[in-house]
């Protein structure tokens, strides 16, 4: 029997009683995930949680069926601390399985590259998947790395401390001269233990943890969190608040995409676009500040709605500023496409094939640059995106140019969307009180942050508090894509490729 059919279906923005989530034994659970992935579904989240009132651990799988706009959810109670790994047959599970092992000391047997993800102690004392000593804290980056042997092969290690003001991460290149055979990325330096701190919530701190899970995706993560709370409380959100959330999310996308295009220009030494986009990013951030007083949208998105309103005059002023920024950003970016020397650097640098993209389950602009029409705003519309559709922007070449060009296409789409929303904001309140969360329920929310799909999964206990809260930042899916993009490339092109993905370290490290 097709295991996929047994998985429980659910729609975005809804919650589900835990008792109705399909329960499998490990073999069938594996089979169900593999079947679903073979049908073209993606792993949105794969995680473990302590079973209530027991020592056992449950595995949960959230599969995203983009074509049907449904999730398929399943779980399996593990009888032992090991299960047969999925990764050999389903590469997109590889990091999720390593994460499960690190958090709960559960070994995926046969995992081809079994290493810690963030180098922290197991959540369950004394159950370390690698048998590390419980007395000393794990040292971040202390593990074996992939090595290529040979006379002319050399290894270049970069980081965790970098020359620029960026987040810490360790990169190891196996090179033959200037050519990269393999890049291994090792992170974990920013691990703050967010998921653990969310257990027992929601409380006063929860929303702040969400807003800082990845600081540049404040609106994305806060929106995903609020969707979960609202689904668990079965509360509605006023339509005006939904529109303002959409505006904030698109402004966040605009600021970051513009900043990225400028930084890409900077990495190839093309000054005009670099300088102009650096300023224009600030203009978009200031638009968010006009809305809520914070350039990064902190304090705006709250369960039940939004904490700030944009009255008629303010919305009008925002529209004017948006139009001015639109003009400037068009000119600055046009220089980029018109300059042959820039195009020569962007084209055919760091290509990712569609096959690799699908195997790894890439998300966001990186996936759309490989030709995958994958966008949560279309595939799993929630909030305002159910009423105002944004067309998906894709490109087919999978290289740095494609990732830059998709960003530009999205900038244009987002500006049109924000303009439309601001000029016709629905009337009504901006916030409604949220009731208590339903006990023993599961809620899943997907939001298309500027970097890609932000996935949050909440499980509540018998008292309606979070028993487990899983955050999957788009970077978690995409870092491996960067490693693949570097294969057979010049090591000197790494900074450019890295910038074209522009992934989050803290969103991955949590």
């Amino acid at each position, binding site marked *: 029997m097709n295991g996929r059919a047994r998985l429980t279906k659910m729609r975005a923005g809804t919650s589900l009683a835990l008792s109705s989530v399909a329960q499998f034994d490990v073999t069938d659970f594996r089979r169900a995930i593999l079947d679903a992935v073979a049908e073209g579904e993606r792993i949105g989240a794969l995680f473990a949680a302590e079973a209530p009132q027991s020592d056992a651990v449950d595995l949960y799988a959230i599969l995203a069926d983009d074509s049907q706009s449904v999730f398929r959810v399943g779980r399996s109670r593990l009888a032992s601390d090991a299960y047969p790994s999925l990764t050999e047959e389903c590469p997109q599970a590889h990091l999720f399985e390593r994460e499960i092992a690190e958090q709960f000391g559960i070994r995926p047997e046969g995992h081809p590259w079994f290493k810690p993800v963030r180098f922290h102690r197991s959540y369950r004392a004394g159950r370390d998947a690698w048998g590390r000593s419980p007395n000393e804290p794990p040292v971040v980056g202390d593990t074996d790395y992939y090595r290529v042997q040979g006379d002319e092969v*050399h*290894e*270049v*290690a*970069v980081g965790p401390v970098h*020359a*620029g003001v960026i987040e810490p991460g360790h990169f190891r290149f196996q090179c033959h*001269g*200037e050519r990269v055979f393999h890049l291994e990325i090792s992170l974990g330096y920013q691990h703050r233990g967010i998921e653990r701190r969310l257990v027992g919530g929601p409380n006063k701190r929860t929303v702040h943890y969400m807003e800082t899970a990845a600081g540049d995706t404040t609106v994305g993560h806060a929106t995903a969190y609020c969707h979960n709370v609202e689904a668990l409380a079965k509360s509605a959100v006023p339509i005006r608040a939904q529109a303002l959330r959409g505006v904030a999310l698109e402004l966040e996308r605009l600021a970051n995409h513009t900043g990225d295009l400028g930084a890409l*220009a900077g*990495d*190839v*030494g*093309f*000054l*005009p676009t*670099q*300088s*102009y986009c650096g300023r224009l990013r600030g203009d978009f951030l200031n638009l968010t500040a006009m809305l809520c007083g914070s350039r990064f949208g902190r304090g705006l998105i709250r369960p039940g709605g939004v904490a700030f309103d944009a009255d008629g005059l303010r919305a009008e002023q925002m529209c004017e500023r948006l139009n001015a920024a639109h003009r400037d950003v068009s000119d600055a970016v046009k220089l980029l496409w018109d*300059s042959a*020397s*820039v195009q*020569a*650097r962007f084209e055919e*640098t760091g290509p990712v094939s569609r096959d690799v993209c699908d195997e790894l389950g890439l998300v966001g602009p990186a996936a759309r640059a490989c030709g995958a029409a994958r966008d949560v705003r279309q595939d799993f519309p929630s909030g305002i995106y159910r009423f105002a559709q944004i067309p998906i922007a894709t490109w087919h070449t999978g290289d740095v140019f494609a990732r830059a060009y998709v960003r530009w296409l999205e900038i244009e789409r987002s500006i049109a969307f924000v303009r439309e929303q601001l000029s016709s904001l629905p009337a009504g309140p901006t916030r409604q009180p949220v009731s208590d969360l339903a006990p023993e329920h599961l809620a899943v929310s997907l939001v298309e942050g500027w970097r890609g799909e932000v996935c949050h999964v909440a499980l509540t206990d018998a008292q309606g508090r979070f028993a487990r809260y899983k955050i999957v930042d788009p970077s978690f899916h995409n870092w491996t894509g960067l490693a693949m993009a570097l294969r057979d490339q*010049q*090591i*000197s*092109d*790494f*900074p*450019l490729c890295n910038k074209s993905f522009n992934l989050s370290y803290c969103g991955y490290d949590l």
Partner: protein
Amino acid sequence: MNPSLYVFLHVLVAAAAPPLLLGVINKVKAGFAGRVGPPLLQPYYDLLKLMRKGSVFSTTTTWVFRAGPVVALATTLFAALLIPLAGPLAPVSFTGDLVLLAYLFGLGRFFTATAAMDTGSSFEGMGAAREVTFACLAEPAFFLGLVVLAKSAGSLRLADLLGVSLWANWTTAGAALALVLAGWFIVLLAENCRIPFDDPNTHLELTMIHEVMVLDHSGPALGMILYGAAVKLFVFAALLVRLALPVATGNPWTDWPLFLAGLLAVAVAVGVVESAMARLRLIHVPTLLVAACLLTGFGVVLIGR
């Protein structure tokens, strides 16, 4: 003009003017980017700041590492004495000095690259490999240009090559000299790590060529390296100016202003190139250097007919 006064002026300009070129380039770039940019004299302030700082030396390095900046600076400063700037004379001049000029740069490069290897850092080794690879291609272009000049001037002294006889040669062999001018401008950009070859502003160690070799130097040693780099740019710019504008009227009131204006023009040209185009992919750098060799090579063909 009194020769000793001329030598004094020559040394003064060669020692004091180089950082100004960097200041001008940065101003031009800022102008293109719509920024105010750093003050013109910022490179001087930076050098003064570095000279007052302490140094940190890795325990894995040897005397080679400390010798690198000293030799690099000494060779470029000496090279600046070999070229006539604004007059018929150079402070140091003898038959065959053009070979010395080329190999002074070679010596400086050898020590910079060896000092980089001395640190044992994989970045610096990578940078040294890139630097010498590209130098292998830039050197022939430079030499072929010298051949054109030597043949047209009928001498092996730089003071004659870049002397008043150039005026006549521009009319008889103008095409060959123009090719040399174009080829040498490319060599100037490559030798001085400017865009499109290298990005002097980048902080990305994996993409750098020259900068990555000097990552471990600090304080006065780094100051010497930066100053040496500025002098090197000055020397190449002076060569170009003398080639295009061989003024040696003997009247210092016309010669020096013309020469300095030429230097500024070169700095502005470098700034414009850096603003208008992106860096080349590293793998395509040799193509452009080969183009420089071809340009000067055709110059040789034209003049040898």
